[in-house]
């Protein structure tokens, strides 16, 4: 059976017409000559007409064949036949093999009681590499190195085996589709025609991201290649999944989350640190002790009993004594399970003295007057006396671009108009990580807001405004997004809080052009209209309240719910520490707030070793960036300009803790066809060793034929055109 390994160049075959076309064009270019010795030409034709015709035909044929041979050589035809090993289930290989070993070195590959799954994966990988022959090429692609510059394939299989043996599991999360995509990209760097994507994974189900059907559909389409692509070639690579027999999932507890019970953590105010522990095993766990540490000091322990498949939360009350960065670490004491890596989790928490909030009002005055009087009172009732919010209230005319850099949240209350330069400054403020709360009202110019602030969804406003409405029966808030951190302070009585909060007038929000996933509705009226919505813009957040923030259009400021709602919204808007300090393995410290970022900065890893820092740019600002942080734990950055160190936390993905394996059937379903699933080195030997190279690529023969034909053509041409010297002398 002959297959074309490079069918994309099939159009090259049309080049065979070139000699015929050139011949016809050549015949059209006639020169006229009055000739005396015609009798010799006539005599020659009488004798040689047939031979001339045959020679011409032969030459034409040779030239066509030369081009056809070259065109065929470029198509890389290969003769092969399917062959089988002793069990008849062996692989079909297309000539020399290009193998990309995709190694899932994620956290879960550390799981195992006697030995980690990663060791079994390496043995399978070695068994596969044993099946490769001289001339085959291979490359290693690690899950932990996705995104790093790709490396070139190597022909040194022995070197690659040593490389594989030296690998260790990392702390990154599994993303099988991403790994497969990277493998397909890496195949482009190979030159051998036979292509194999060899997936070395621990077979944990969660890492396959089955729920992401769009990605899998795209991946399957890439793996399938063109309709006429030969299986086992780079256009349709053979997929080999090497997954060791399951390491078990019967026992694994994991700390899946550590966080505060509020969005804004203030110094000197008691708060709760929540620790979530989940039992991924099939047996209940009793007498599990959770230990809490803040900045390396134990602050408490709590016992937990967690049913199989369930989770429990332990709350540690703690008061952060002063503002600054804190490293909070929770760990399971005296506990052993299949995956120790997820028994400990750290987070970095920024404690503020108070959140700087800028209220922009028409004409600010004390008390409840004007547009933002109620809001100021809700956030900072004691006007700057040790509250969690430090509020500054200015008029629109005082608002400048430079003033924004001193605040984390800006509130616009029914602002009449903003200068275009100010709109631009606000957009840059929110894209860079700031928070904006926009309230509307009777002074809101809808046309102006839509044109400059919303810009059809491209501006800083979450969405354009539709018309302002005043229903005959004033609606009240009916549905709230209870899981949202804004509502953390409401607790179980949230439904009761809105009963009297009539909204007399409000702007309908035009969300038609905004993707539903982009906008987060926080509060909806009982008539279905949105009242409060949030949208991420760049690294920051914008929250839009469709009614007034004072009592002009709504009774909401007169209700008890107003204070926790506004504090929740403003606290949430200001709670994001940008650049982030809670990272996944592979993330980097990005420090962009230093005035002179290079001077005196140093960073340490969890073991105290210094980290390499480099100058870089982040969101248009000078920044210092560390090397990728691969190990979980607390990393410390020391800035001579700051009184306290800044903590960065690296924690493994909670998804890695679910060790339930994926079944062979489920794996096979992802790849439609052409999948070889191997679980043991014995199976590998059975399936891969008989894979002798019975396929032969024919391109070199076609090139040789073309060369021979070219010699023939040259000889024929020379014979015809060479002058017959000495024969007429």
């Amino acid at each position, binding site marked *: 059976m002959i297959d074309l390994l490079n069918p994309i160049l099939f159009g090259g075959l049309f080049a065979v017409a070139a000699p015929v076309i050139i011949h016809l064009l050549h015949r059209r270019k006639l020169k006229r000559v009055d000739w005396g010795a015609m009798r010799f030409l006539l005599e*020659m034709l009488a004798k040689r007409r047939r031979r001339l015709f045959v020679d011409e035909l032969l030459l034409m044929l040779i030239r066509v064949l030369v081009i056809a041979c070259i065109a065929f050589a470029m198509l890389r035809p290969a003769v092969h036949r399917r062959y089988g090993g002793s069990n008849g289930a062996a692989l079909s290989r297309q000539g020399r093999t290009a193998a990309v070993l995709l190694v899932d070195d994620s956290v879960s590959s550390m799981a195992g009681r006697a030995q980690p799954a990663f060791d079994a994966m390496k043995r399978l990988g070695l068994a596969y590499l044993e099946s490769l022959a001289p001339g085959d090429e291979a490359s290693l692609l690690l899950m932990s190195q996705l995104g790093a510059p790709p490396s070139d394939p190597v022909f040194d299989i022995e070197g690659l085996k040593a490389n594989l043996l030296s690998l260790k599991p990392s702390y990154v999360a599994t993303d099988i589709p991403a790994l497969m995509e990277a493998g397909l990209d890496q195949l482009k760097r190979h030159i051998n025609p036979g292509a194999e994507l060899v997936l070395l994974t621990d077979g944990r189900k969660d890492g396959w991201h089955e729920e992401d059907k769009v990605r899998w559909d795209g991946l399957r389409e890439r793996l399938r290649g063109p309709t006429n692509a030969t299986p086992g070639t780079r256009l349709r690579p053979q997929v080999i999944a090497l997954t060791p027999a399951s390491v078990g999932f019967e026992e694994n507890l994991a700390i899946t989350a550590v966080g505060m019970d509020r969005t804004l953590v203030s110094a000197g105010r008691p708060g709760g640190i929540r620790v979530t522990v989940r039992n991924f095993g099939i047996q209940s766990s009793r007498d599990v002790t959770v230990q809490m540490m803040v900045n390396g000091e134990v602050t408490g322990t709590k016992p937990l009993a967690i049913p199989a498949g369930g989770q429990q939360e332990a709350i540690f009350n703690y008061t952060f004594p002063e503002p600054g960065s804190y490293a909070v670490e929770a760990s399971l004491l005296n506990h052993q399970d299949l995956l120790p890596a997820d028994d400990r989790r750290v987070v970095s928490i920024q404690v503020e003295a108070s959140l700087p909030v800028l209220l922009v009002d028409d004409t600010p005055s004390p008390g409840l007057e004007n547009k933002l009087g109620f809001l100021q009172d809700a956030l900072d009732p004691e006007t700057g006396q040790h509250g969690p919010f430090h509020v500054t209230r200015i008029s629109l005319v005082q608002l400048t671009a430079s003033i924004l850099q001193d605040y984390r949240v800006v509130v616009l209350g029914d602002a009449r108009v903003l200068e275009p330069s100010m709109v631009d400054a606000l957009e840059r403020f929110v894209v860079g990580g700031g928070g904006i709360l926009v309230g509307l009202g009777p002074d809101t110019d809808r046309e102006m807001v839509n044109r400059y602030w919303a810009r059809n969804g491209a501006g800083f406003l979450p969405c354009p405004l539709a018309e302002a409405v005043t229903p005959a029966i004033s609606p009240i808030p009916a549905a709230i997004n209870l899981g949202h951190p804004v509502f953390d302070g409401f607790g179980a009585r949230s439904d009761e809080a809105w009963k009297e909060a009539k909204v007399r007038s409000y702007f309908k929000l035009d969300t038609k052009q905004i993707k539903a996933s982009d906008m987060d509705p926080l509060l909806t009226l009982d008539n279905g209209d949105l009242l409060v919505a949030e949208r991420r813009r760049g690294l920051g957040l914008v929250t839009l309240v469709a009614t007034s923030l004072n009592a002009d259009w709504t009774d909401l400021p007169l209700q008890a719910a107003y204070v926790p709602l506004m504090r929740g919204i403003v606290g949430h808007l200001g709670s994001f520490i940008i650049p982030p300090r809670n990272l996944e393995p592979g993330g980097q410290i990005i420090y962009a707030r230093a005035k002179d970022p290079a001077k005196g900065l140093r960073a340490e890893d969890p073991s105290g070793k210094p980290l390499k820092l480099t100058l870089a740019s982040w969101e248009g600002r000078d920044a210092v960036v560390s090397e990728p942080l691969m190990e979980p734990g607390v990393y410390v950055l020391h800035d001579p300009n700051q009184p306290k160190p800044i903590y960065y936390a690296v924690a493994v993905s909670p998804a890695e803790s679910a060790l339930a394996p994926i079944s062979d059937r489920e794996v096979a379903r992802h790849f439609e066809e052409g999948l070889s699933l191997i679980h043991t080195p014995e199976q590998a030997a059975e399936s891969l060793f008989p894979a002798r190279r019975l396929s032969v690529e024919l391109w070199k023969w076609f090139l040789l034929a073309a060369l021979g034909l070219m010699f023939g053509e040259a000889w024929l041409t020379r014979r015809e055109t060479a002058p017959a010297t000495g024969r007429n002398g």
Partner: protein
Amino acid sequence: MSLLQKVQQEVIERLGNLSITARQAVESVLAGQHRSVRRGLSVEFAGHREYQPGDDLRHLDWLVWARSDRYDIRQYEEETKLRAAIVLDTSGSMGYASGAQTKLEYARALAAALGFLMIRQSDAVGLVTCDTAIREFLPPGSTMAHFLNVLAALEKVQPGGETSLATVMDEIAERFTRRGLVILISDAFDDPEAFLKSIQHLRHRKQEVRLFQILDSEEQSFPFRGMIEFIGLEREPTLKLDGDRVRAHYQEVFAQHQGRLRSGCHAAGVQLETCSTNQELFTVLIRALGLR
């Protein structure tokens, strides 16, 4: 430049400037050709001279020896005139020229030069122009006035018509009953078998024959490249051929023709002189007259 001027330039100025020896050689070459012709013709007695070693014993006057016991050689008042006919082929193929002059122009210059040389040593020269038949016939004459007529006839010849030298040569053989010299100037692009047969006919009629074959250099080298439409000068069908591809075949056929012509002439005792139009006429004359 008129033909006479050309002849004067080529023959008088250049051959005339040759040394005495060379001129004598020219004359002796031509005279040598006459020897067999002269025998048996009437001659006019002029006197005796003493025998010198090397003299032909046939000219020894036996009566003087019988009377006076002296060895005297008989001398004659005048050598016998050579009767020569220059046959000029004016067929269409003679009109071919790759350079400045056609083969016919070259041929008539050659004819004039040879005629002049012969008139100069008192031989009789005639002219025949022909293609498929005789177009002009001037019987041999030895005066300068006759030679001017020959030149005038040469001046007005034009190429045209097909080639049939065999027919013409047969007719000449019938017309020239007395011994003489036939100088044929042609490209000899004719059927070699018929042509050689007619030559033998001439030889059979006791005619000395010399063939000057006039060729153009391109007719030998066939230098054409690419597609060429060949238009025959003798009403042959037009041919469209790739010059590169037919060159070798053409040269082979041409060489065969030349080979047959050469061997046929040799067998018939005909001196063949092949000339190219890019050769100087003077050098051709020197070579033809055996001076080199």
